[in-house]
């Protein structure tokens, strides 16, 4: 079966998920076609190893984001098994491409095998589902779950002029409340929970975050009770994150929270309660109060 990869861009270049999608297709023995919505990063896509062809779809509709318009413009370039990133934009465009073509979509795969057999977490990671799809389909892949293809490709870039009617008009930009790194983008996250006492104490976690380039996250309890921004919330009704390092401070580890962070590569838990469930998923657990442990963390990081 033929494979098509829908590329994703980030600013002026390709999002790292694109090379991972190509890597996943290559692992199944395919040399995929990469479709680049709006053409951003098309040359970069052509240099990914294993790509057979790049289709750069350019048109006015790509100036702003309207998933329906984007899907309309690229759908005719997508055939066979279509892979996209399980990012907000990837999920939406992929859903519409699937519905347009009348084929099923399976979102957020963390494993693919010939067949096609798809592995993906369900119930926010409380269980894992393995399913088989036959025929043409659309699959979105979780970021960082698949080995990225390397560089060294030299595929041809075909430019296709194709726009579509846009139904969503951007009327007003609203600036970010804070310039802090978002938890869904970060490779290191330090999160606080009710155990740190009060909202103001997040300042201590921010200091640690600034030392190691981390994002600051929060448990649902403090988002709801202390009015922290929802964008910080890690858990089943917040963000599901998979950073290299997750540091949980004063978080007991409710099942809701564990669901959102348990697949982080390394987990450090700091909690004064030795029986807190968070220690069950921690690679490194430290039984201590945050008042003692956080200054010690700052000192240890400063000494590195």
């Amino acid at each position, binding site marked *: 079966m033929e494979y098509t990869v829908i590329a994703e861009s980030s600013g002026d270049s390709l999002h790292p998920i694109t090379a991972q999608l190509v890597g996943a297709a290559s692992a199944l023995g395919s040399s995929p076609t990469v479709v680049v919505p709006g053409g951003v990063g098309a040359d970069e896509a052509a240099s990914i190893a294993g790509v057979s062809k790049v289709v750069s779809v350019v048109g006015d509709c790509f100036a702003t984001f309207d998933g329906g318009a984007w899907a309309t413009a690229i759908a005719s370039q997508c055939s066979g098994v279509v892979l996209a990133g399980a990012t907000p934009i990837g999920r939406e465009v992929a859903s519409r491409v699937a519905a347009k073509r009348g084929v099923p979509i399976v979102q957020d795969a963390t494993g693919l095998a010939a067949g096609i057999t798809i592995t993906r977490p369900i119930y926010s990671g409380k269980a894992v589902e393995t399913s088989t799809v036959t025929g043409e389909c659309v699959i979105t892949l979780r970021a960082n779950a698949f080995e990225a293809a390397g560089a060294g490709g030299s595929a041809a870039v075909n430019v296709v002029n194709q726009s579509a009617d846009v139904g969503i008009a951007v009327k007003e930009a609203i600036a970010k409340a804070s310039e802090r790194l978002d938890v869904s983008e970060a490779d290191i996250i330090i999160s606080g929970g009710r155990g740190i006492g009060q909202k103001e104490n997040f300042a201590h976690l921010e200091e640690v975050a600034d030392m190691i380039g981390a994002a600051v996250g929060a448990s649902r309890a403090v988002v709801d009770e202390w009015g922290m921004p929802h964008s910080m919330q890690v858990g089943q009704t917040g963000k599901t994150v998979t950073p290299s390092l997750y540091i949980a401070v004063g978080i007991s580890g409710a099942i809701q929270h564990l669901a959102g962070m348990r697949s982080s590569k*390394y987990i450090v838990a700091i909690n004064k309660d030795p029986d807190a469930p968070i220690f069950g998923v921690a690679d490194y657990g430290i039984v201590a109060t945050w008042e003692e442990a956080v200054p010690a963390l700052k000192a240890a990081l400063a000494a590195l």
Partner: protein
Amino acid sequence: MSIAVLLKQVPDTTAKISVSAGRVDESTVSKWSMSPYDEYALESALQLKESGGGDIVAITAGPARCEKLLRDAAAVGADTLVHISAENINDLDSTQVQKLLAAAVEKIGSSVVFCGKQAADTNAGSTGPGVAELIGASCVTLVSEVAADGAGYSATRPSAAGQEKVGVSAPCVFAFDKGITEMRRPNVRGIMMAKKKPIETWSATDLGVDIGAAAVTIDTHSPPAEKPRGQKFEGADSVSTVVGKLRDEANVI
């Protein structure tokens, strides 16, 4: 004008999920709830109704247990309740679910659809955009707020720079992220009224759709892989040891 709100009943996010004989065992789910993002969609629809009028039509697809979900929606103000009966909802693929929901929306004649950005069981997020495609509508996803704006609507969604306000006209679908307000609590009168509210129960045949066979087959469910037991340390003095391990063993800082 009617606003269709697509709702899904899922195991409560506090519920344990257990697997037996290769499938998630629904009989062990301690509590079934409205999927959290759907609650934001329903609350926003209720607020839109209060400011501009209209009827709220709550639609769900699923087995008989979903009646409670519809009653809960009625208790906070949903005017019409629609149950698309699908005993095997978890075995249907995205195409089949979307066909059923889109047909119900069209049968009701709603040109505005509210739903959650994803359900708390499958975590997929295919339904909003997929239904939009089938009914020929625009779809704004990850919405936190919607208001009537002239002949159309304005919605707030995230953007690369923060957030943005967008304008859209019907037909349109809004897929909600966590909104600005929690769903209201029902009052006693609402709960009593909800008990008596009729539920329209429709099958695929009633909706005039042939959903065919699923193209995706679930092979097995399994519990998540157990993590090997970690290392545990006592007291803040151990922090520097752990930081050393993060650098030398884990290579993450």
